[in-house]
């Protein structure tokens, strides 16, 4: 297996990861602090026979991604928080039409233009609920440049496997962080591509959608020689035809949620650091992980049994792992660069009387280990 070491920033590792995952189409609108992904895609994609196109806005970028993916090409875009707001419309289209794609959101502060382009981790709820209507979503969050490469491949695999757009919630700190990364080219068994229909199936029997179980239905590309494909953002039946009867609306809504939520075990990724005997547990994600690890080290040196649970998958929430921490630790601290979006989710699971503290930072400066430790003294 080919492997090479590079000293690059997170945004560059994303491009390498996407190409390694087999992505060959990028449509986007440049925005700091994500533009290095666009620039990397523009430079690298044609070298692999792929296409970069700079669209007129994030709305059209998201639409173009879905079109290219429907034509059978793994597709991605990159943006930052204000652009992510614009993508919500066609993110919903991707969810309803069940078209895979990967959206990299290198988060920055807000609302609106905010303190461009200072880091934040404040799109947790936008990622989950930004697109209107009931649905579920998959979102991953990297905490290192290595993650930007490895998890990008995971993101494409999940998008293809679950036939849905997948979000990659990076942030300005990780996007511009420079570290040594080992880029290992994935083997064929480490790359997942959307399931194709049975080669013997006839057009008459083929259905582009299926709602009888929570499993994902095969997706042929438009332009294949055998089957005609039909997708729509309207509530549809198995044939992809508009079907707004109450029974159908209800089953489609449940299906779009269940196909992700019922597979949470397969989708969620977590990591732990010194967690086993921890009395004080930190639960965090993204750039805050880095400061939290230092906080754990400092506390351990002082004899405090501190540990960390890192949520690599943000959505669906790793409920099982979070509950295990809440059941065991006396105190849980949630460091995050927003006013408590993750903490609120963790409280929902707190059936254990665990003390939950928030370590929030919203001034556009990376949260520090000391600030995290100080939370315990309040």
């Amino acid at each position, binding site marked *: 297996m080919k492997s090479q070491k590079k000293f690059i920033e997170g945004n560059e590792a994303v491009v390498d990861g996407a190409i390694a995952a*087999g992505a*060959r*189409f990028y*449509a986007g609108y440049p925005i700091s602090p994500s533009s290095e992904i666009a620039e990397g895609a523009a430079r690298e994609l*044609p*070298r*692999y*026979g*792929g*296409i970069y*196109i700079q*669209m*007129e*806005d994030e*709305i*059209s*970028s998201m*639409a*173009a*991604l*879905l*079109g*290219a*993916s*429907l*034509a*059978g*090409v793994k*597709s991605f875009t990159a943006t930052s928080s204000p652009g992510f707001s614009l993508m919500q*419309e*066609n993110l*919903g*289209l991707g969810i309803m*039409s069940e078209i895979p794609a990967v959206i990299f959101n290198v988060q920055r502060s807000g609302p609106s233009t905010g303190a461009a382009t200072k880091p934040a981790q404040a799109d947790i709820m936008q990622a989950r609920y930004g697109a209107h209507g009931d649905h579920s979503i998959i979102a991953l969050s990297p905490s290192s440049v290595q993650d930007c490469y490895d998890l990008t491949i995971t993101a494409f695999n999940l998008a293809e496997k679950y036939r849905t757009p997948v979000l990659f919630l990076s942030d300005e700190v990780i996007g511009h962080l420079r570290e040594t990364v080992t880029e290992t080219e994935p083997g064929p068994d480490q790359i997942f591509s959307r399931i194709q229909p049975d080669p013997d199936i006839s057009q008459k029997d083929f259905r582009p959608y299926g709602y009888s179980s929570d499993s994902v239905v095969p997706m042929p*590309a*438009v*332009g*294949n*020689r*055998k089957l*005609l*494909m*039909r*997708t*729509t*953002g*309207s509530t549809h039946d198995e044939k*992809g*035809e*508009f079907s707004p009867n109450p029974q159908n609306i209800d089953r489609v809504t449940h299906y779009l949620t269940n196909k992700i939520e019922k597979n949470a075990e397969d989708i969620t990724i977590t990591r732990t650091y010194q967690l086993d005997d921890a009395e004080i547990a930190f639960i965090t994600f993204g750039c805050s992980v880095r400061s939290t690890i230092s906080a754990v080290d400092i506390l351990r040196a002082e004899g405090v049994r501190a540990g960390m649970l890192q949520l690599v998958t943000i959505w669906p929430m790793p409920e099982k792992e979070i509950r295990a921490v809440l059941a065991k630790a006396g105190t849980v601290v949630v460091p995050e660069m927003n006013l408590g979006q993750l903490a609120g989710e963790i409280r929902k699971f707190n059936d254990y009387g665990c003390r939950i503290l928030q370590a929030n930072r919203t001034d556009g400066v990376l949260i520090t280990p000391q600030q995290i430790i100080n939370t315990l003294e309040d």
Partner: protein
Amino acid sequence: MADYKDYMLFDKLPHTWCAGCGDGIVLQSIAAVFAEMELDKHDICLVSGIGCFGRVDDYLDINCMHVTHGRALPAATGIALANPALHVIVTMGDGDSVTIGGNHLIHCARRNIDLTAIIANNYNYGQTGGQYSGTTPTDSITSTSPYGHIEQEFDICRLAEAAGATYVARATAFNPVQMRKLIRGGIEHKGFSLIECMVQCPTHYGRYNRQGEAADMMKMMNARSIPAEKAKTMSAEELEGRIVTGVIVNKNREDYYTKYKRIIDAQRIREEGGSVNEN
């Protein structure tokens, strides 16, 4: 010989449109052109937006992607670039194409993406009850301009031409023979082509503006029509209120994909299965 019926889904009929609506004429024209050209269904992908005309894909037995309001052109851009062998047809109303999606139209034309945009212009938002759109003529009555519309309307063809469209044509629902000819011209054209089809909405625009029945509206359209060749010899005043029909622009300019393919050919570092072109 293929028949237009070969491209239709008859089990979806009766269609959703009102009696007398012009949208069905455009649908039949599109299917008839596919038949005339004997296109393999697998080689066609239709992308549709939202609105009365956005439902056109419901009745066609081809590859279809039904998207959000105004976003049909960017979705089609992705398809056309990912599989340049496809005939990508984009069906939109005046809301989709030049109102909510106007920005996408000018950029798609400017880039010269190889696809065919077919726009049904009925001067208003039929599906939502007859509100004004970007093509509603000044002084018209609509459900949201009850005192007369004060905005100036877009001329879709002139807008497309100015934005760089390489094939621009217009037909009315009165003349389906010409409509078919122009749609075929658009599909055969390499690059961004746009055919504006003037259609009647007797239910809303016609009623609000006392234009009579569908047949009266179609006759009025025809009376206002003027061939593009003749229009060239006329002054702006003489053309006031007229509908210029026929091929308005037809020129060669290399399309986006052909240009991009040259970059791929020059930059490609290795052969592998993941190529867009070979997928």
